[in-house]
């Protein structure tokens, strides 16, 4: 299931030359005026298939190419309307890039796109008692840490597990196991939060 309607065959008028324009285009094919961003999902915006497995350097390439033409710096001497549309475009592209680049945000987002019927309440399983218990134990460990290497040990363990979790999420999505992906994503959320805490603790321990 896809939240974005197929707009590839829709024709809309360009705000500048008033001529026909394929819906979703960033620029008018006739007068080259920048258009307001289309209401499409992050993957469509970057011209990518909805897939958890992302080649980050390819993503960077797509992102840079889009910003090269749409960033407000390209419209510094244009009309107010073009400036506003370029800002809206660049904002939407940044949002898409930021979401797709990060495995946690990406997993969450794909579950939202694909899992509307599977998990009506989204995938908020933070109340999982085993995670809560574990979180308390790790926090005590962090609080007791007396030097950087103690803190780093906690961080390294979390990072190692994250790799496995991301691989597991990928596998779950490939098998269309949204519920499984959801559970792993909850775990990933917990680990991400843990790493944030580690970072804070790290600044306190000298």
């Amino acid at each position, binding site marked *: 299931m896809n939240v974005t309607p197929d707009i590839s065959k829709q*024709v809309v008028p360009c705000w500048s030359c008033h001529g026909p324009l394929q819906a979703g285009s960033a620029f008018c094919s006739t007068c080259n005026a920048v258009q307001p961003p289309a209401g499409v999902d992050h993957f469509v915006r970057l011209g990518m298939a909805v897939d958890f497995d992302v080649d980050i350097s390819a993503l960077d390439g797509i992102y840079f190419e889009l910003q090269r033409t749409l960033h407000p710096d390209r419209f510094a001497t244009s*009309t107010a309307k073009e400036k506003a549309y370029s800002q809206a475009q660049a904002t939407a592209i940044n949002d898409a890039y930021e979401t797709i680049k990060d495995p946690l945000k990406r997993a969450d987002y794909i579950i939202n796109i694909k899992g509307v019927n599977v998990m009506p309440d989204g995938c908020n399983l933070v109340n999982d008692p085993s995670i809560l218990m574990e979180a308390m134990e790790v926090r005590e460990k962090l609080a007791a840490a007396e030097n950087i290497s103690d803190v780093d040990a906690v961080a390294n363990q979390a990072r190692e597990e994250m790799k496995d979790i991301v691989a597991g999420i990928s596998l779950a999505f490939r098998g269309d196991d949204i519920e499984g992906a959801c559970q792993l994503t909850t775990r990933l959320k917990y680990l991400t939060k843990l790493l944030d805490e580690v970072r804070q603790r790290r600044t306190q321990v000298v």
Partner: protein
Amino acid sequence: MATLLQIHEPGETPQPHESKSELAIGIDLGTTNSVVAVSRDNKPDVLKGDDGTALVPSIVAYAPDGSAIVGVLAKGLLLSRPGAVVSSIKRLMGRGVEDIKSLAGQLPYEIENENTQGMVRLRVQGNSLTPVEISADILKALKERADENLGESVTKAVITVPAYFDDAGRVATKDAARLAGLEVLRLVAEPTAAALAYGLDAGAEGLYAVFDLGGGTFDVSLLRMQKGVFQVLATGGDAALGGDDFDHAVAEYFLGQRTEKLHEKSFSADEAKVALMTARIAKECLTSEESGEWVIEAGGETSRHSLSRDELEQLIGPMVGKAIKICSNVLDDGGVSTDEIKGVVLVGGSTRVPLVRKRVGEFFGREPLADIDPDEVVAIGAALQAEALTQGSDTLLLDVIPLSLGLETMGGLVEKVVHRNTTIPVAKAQEFTTFQDGQTAMSIHVVQGEREMVDQNRSLARFNLTGIPPMTAGAARIRVTFQVDADGLLTVSANEDSTGIESQVEVKPSYGLSDEEMATMLRASMEHAKDDMELRLLTEARVEAERAMNAVEAALKADCSLLDEGERAAIGRQIDVVMAACRGSERDLINAEAENLDTVTRPFAEKRMDKGINDALKGAPVSKLESKAD
């Protein structure tokens, strides 16, 4: 009208008016020194004064009538007329009275304290001046230097700000530029500008750190450079850490010795000023010398002070350590370790201090780069960006917001809406709800900073969202959206979802100038403020008319077969009328004729839409339309 209108073949109408190569300058508005540069054909030039120097001391001397002298001349008055001279004003940009209370003892200014709200005001020679006005005087001097050097009146500029400047500091800088008659094309972070100057020069690829220690501010940015894209991954800093602090540490050391030697209980303001200047000279000397002796003459008493480089390093060591610690945090934020960094760029005069170079080298495990003069590199980067923005470019700067933006929630806690190090422009929304039955208004308090409690962060603005229909507690859905533009400036809007009530606020920092204050200053500062405004509106009208003509030209080129000769001629005639209007300077006429062009071409646009939709139904992609129309 007596003028005969020329009629061109559709599609052959010449460009409305030759795009004038208007030069835009790059300005590094520094705490200690400022620099202005210009770039032509990708070749940046630092603009020099009559004395052949590039640096303009950021020092302003005021006469009782409010007239200002900027730069070397003002610096010369620092000792003889200390009460008339203002230096390091950048440290107060965007600061409120409360902010600077803690600094009061250290500041060589007389602060007007009567209004504790709003922007700080200084009393100089009987004039009451805000930091924005004083900075505007520095910018005016830089603009004059550019005007003289380039032989034309420059109106557009890229101005750099410390990466770690908050919204208030950025707004204050933009306001100062407006007062100086400069349109800010973009505010660019200083380390990012420096990276641009380096990266373009060296064709660098990979991860780079920029260590920027100026007179009053410290920034460190982590950038990824890749095929002409300068992507800032993380930035950090301290808006109140710089070479000034080194000077203060040395001055305090000297004054301690002096009071002891002269058996004084305390020292006078004059002694403090002289000690500060001496400290600065000593610090600079010890960059090349191992030790030296200096004399402080004030109030008829002379004292001698010796200082070695080792002693200097002990005095400033903790401050350098603070900067290094910030570097470590920034790398952590960017998820990068020092061995992944390909190069470290030094920016800012204070990176000449040997201890700074040594500690930076040790931390990053490599010799830092300082090939471009650290005092000029930021202005050079700004000039390159000014050219890129006006003439087009293949390079791209992607910068981040340095400090998180959030809202006050129950119990004085901060709910972060936009996290620090998010790439700009960015928009984020957060939903809130009412906590009392029948609540019809909500007070929104915008803060900037990383701490959990509101009062530990910077308060940017407060506004009220009113007219919420009475509902039970928790039923209203209030969506607050933060939009940060490419200058790093924030706009906040709020709307109640179930009723669509909307409230949009241009966030003016709590310590900023109100619109009325700004208007009054504009009137007072520019004799031709009105002309200036009119000129800007006229330029905008021309730009808009040109856009409309270009759009019609493009449409004619693509679809001229849809028109008969008479229709084509009618459109051609109206284009000529708009062009003629653009050559004149009647703004209303330009707008009206552009509007007429829109009316005249409307049937044409309708035909084009019909054709586009028909083609789409037949399965032809719209993008092929232009080739088919020929």
